[in-house]
């Protein structure tokens, strides 16, 4: 069965530090990839998505993700985090149905 793995469960960074959150998926065929963010007390919002084309995808709030097919990865990055980025981040693969990773809690210290 398709699975999504997020390597970091809890990340703590200081403001202005760089961020990279890992995401690997198991399916070898065509996939659509997503990163969702859930700010404290709020619902999930789409951060960015990859369907095809340029493997480097830019999303909202300065986030980007790179699709590396050979590594089955779709890691999320941000060069300089802010306190307001404190949230839970979910990687997801859509292969007909959306399969989520376990989530990564990011805490940014001011």
């Amino acid at each position: 069965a398709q699975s999504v793995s997020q390597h970091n469960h809890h990340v703590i960074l200081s403001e202005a530090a760089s961020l990279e959150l890992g995401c690997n998926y198991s399916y070898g065929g065509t996939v659509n990839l997503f990163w969702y963010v859930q700010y404290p007390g709020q619902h999930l919002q789409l951060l960015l998505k990859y369907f095809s084309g340029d493997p480097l995808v830019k999303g909202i709030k300065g986030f980007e993700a790179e699709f590396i097919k050979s590594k089955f990865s779709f890691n999320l990055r941000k060069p300089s985090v802010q306190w307001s980025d404190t949230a839970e981040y979910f990687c997801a693969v859509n292969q007909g149905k959306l399969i989520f990773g376990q989530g990564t809690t990011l805490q940014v210290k001011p």
Partner: protein
Amino acid sequence: IAGITQAPTSQILAAGRRMTLRCTQDMRHNAMYWYRQDLGLGLRLIHYSNTAGTTGKGEVPDGYSVSRANTDDFPLTLASAVPSQTSVYFCASSLLAGQGNEQFFGPGTRLTVL
């Protein structure tokens, strides 16, 4: 305001009681979904509906039922709640079912079963 609404926002329920979580969307999306979110497990699909009048089982359907009588509404029913159903429940929708469709999420219902 366009989007997805869920009710109630939160609920405490005695084990064995019946409970229906409501979900309504006004985006005329064809597909709707129910997920539960549990710490360390991410979101898991309970049931889905690709179009009005059809439903299907997701990853964790046991103990839950759904109906899709019309495009806008997709209620989730717990026939006899158990403590393991304590969770946060999210309803979502997408314009169409299938791989390339972005899902939009509701604000969630926090359910506690005692």
